[in-house]
């Protein structure tokens, strides 16, 4: 297992280098800079700020100094908030996104597996159809539609929750549902498919023939095999749920990483964009590796020896 992880880390290095290089040039090549839009500043002041941040040097020099900084773990200062470092701001915002993401994933797993198992135990029944229609709603109503609509229903009309904000547990309910809905839907569909396949296998028939009660057949015998596809989905989905909350964080005004990134993109905060993009890439790589490890542990057909 350790060689497996080591191998993954070695594979990750070129990926991160590519990400850093692409983002760097994408960000710099475009016309305009972080300070050129500010009309109130005299040009001399802009020039001196540019000099301070090294923006007046040739591009390749900036690139190499940034890359050297990266190897030292230094993401540089934020251009938008003069006294703050990018790493510091990410460290402040990440726990918020992490909390939101984990809650959304737990919600999605509970709802998704519940619906999926419910549907698979009685295929083509009313129960199957209603849980699968529920899942279809989750897939077809994207967060930027679901978010405003549940705000309108539960916060404006019923006044059960605040419209936006991030403080108490209550504030988390609507964003968690908005963010988790699509994952719950996908898990439900995958779970149903996997369970159906497993439930038709011989060993399930054997278990039933031996007189094992139905709930035990499902929990002890079928779930492990039936949820394999769910596990392989959940790993990358966790990365997605933690990193892909731009819309939800913007709608609910949550001070997380997604909002930080969107604001940085609008403000042309070079170092902040680079920092968040790299951070997101690292998260995606870590969660993909973790999900591979979990899959290998529960799937007897796979082993750590493969790539």
């Amino acid at each position, binding site marked *: 297992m350790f060689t497996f992880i080591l191998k993954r880390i070695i594979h*990750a290095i*070129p*990926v991160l280098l*590519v*990400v850093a290089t*692409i*983002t760097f040039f*994408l*960000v710099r090549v*475009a016309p*305009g800079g972080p300070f050129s839009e500010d009309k109130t500043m005299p040009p001399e002041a802009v020039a001196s700020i540019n000099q301070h941040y090294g923006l007046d040097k040739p591009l390749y020099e900036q690139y190499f100094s940034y890359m050297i900084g990266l190897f030292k773990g230094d993401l540089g200062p934020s251009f938008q908030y003069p006294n703050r470092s990018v790493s510091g701001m990410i460290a402040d915002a990440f726990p918020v996104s992490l909390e939101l993401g984990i809650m959304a994933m737990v919600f999605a797993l509970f709802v998704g597996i519940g619906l999926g198992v419910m549907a698979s135990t009685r295929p083509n029944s009313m129960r199957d159809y209603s849980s699968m229609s529920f899942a*279809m709603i989750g*897939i*077809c*109503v*994207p967060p*930027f*539609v679901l*978010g*405003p*609509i549940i*705000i*309108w229903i539960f916060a*404006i009309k019923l006044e059960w929750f605040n419209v936006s904000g991030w403080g108490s547990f209550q504030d988390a309910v609507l964003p968690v549902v908005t963010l988790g809905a699509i994952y719950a839907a996908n898990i439900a569909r995958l779970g149903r498919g996997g369970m159906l396949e497993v439930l038709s296998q011989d060993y399930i028939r054997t278990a039933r023939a031996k007189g094992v009660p139905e709930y035990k057949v499902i929990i002890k015998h079928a779930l492990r095999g039936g949820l394999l596809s769910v596990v392989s989905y959940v790993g990358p989905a966790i990365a997605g749920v933690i*990193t*892909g909350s*731009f*819309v939800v964080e*913007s*709608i609910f005004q949550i001070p997380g990483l997604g909002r930080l*990134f*969107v604001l940085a*993109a*609008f403000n*042309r905060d070079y170092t902040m*964009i680079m920092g*968040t*993009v790299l951070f*997101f*890439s690292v998260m*995606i*790589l870590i969660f*993909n590796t973790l999900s591979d490890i979990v899959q290998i542990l529960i799937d007897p057909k796979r082993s750590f020896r493969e790539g």
Partner: protein
Amino acid sequence: MFWIKEKLSSMSIDAEEPGNSLSKDAFRKLCKNKLALFGIFALSFLVIFSILGPYLMTFNYYQQNLSLGAASPSFTHLCGTDVLGRDLLVRMAYGGRVSLAVGLCATLVSLTIGVVYGAVSGYLGGRIDSLMMRFVDIMYALPFTMLVIVLMVWLGRNFILIFVAIGAIEWLTMARIVRDEVYSIKKKEYIEAARAIGLPGWKIILRHIIPNLLGIIVVYVTLTIPRVMMIEAFLSFLGLGIQPPMSSWGLLIKDGAQVMEEYPWMLFFPSFVFSLTLFCLNFLGDGLRDALDPRTKE
């Protein structure tokens, strides 16, 4: 869709019963799937509404009526008007054109790149295959949504750029699916049998590999279009996609969300149309997948 039917009918598989070709079989299964049929009809209606609607209506998408302001639905404005007094129904029709066009074009871009890349990789196999797939893996690790956001902020909110950006994200999955499929078809017994009776390579590809790919491609296309439309709407929602006075469904949803407290219809109508379209496309995709899979029984 006619070309698909034609292609499907030309690749009839000799089944046990005479005349039971894959296309006929698939068509019959599809007709029995009520949800898929509903999807086809609702989708056709939406497409016709988007294309012809603006010609039949008296308003246009940029005509403002400031004294009217945001009016609730009435007989003159069936879906009401927005804050600037523009007719919402017309703006939804125009938005439909944009959203559907983006969906189709970007899907075609990703389809072309993905199928060619995946087929080449899968057919050649060996070292070239693993190298090409390694490249796809690396691309997968890039946070594309973020790069697209950066691109949109920087290079202006360009219509064509949206196609290219979305197409560039989506081809990766297509390439992987096609590659895996080609790779596994190559090893099937009937390909071996075809080789054994001395069929030339190009005939094997044409008669045995491509027909087997077609189903998966058709299904994948119907499932990619809603995803692509969602990305476009997502960009428009963040204010990075289509710019006013042009309209797209994402943009209308964004406008509606900002004033939903006072004028809820501005959120509801576009949200409904957008979700309905996604529903239809997903139903159709699922229906086609079941219909084209020879293993599913009626």
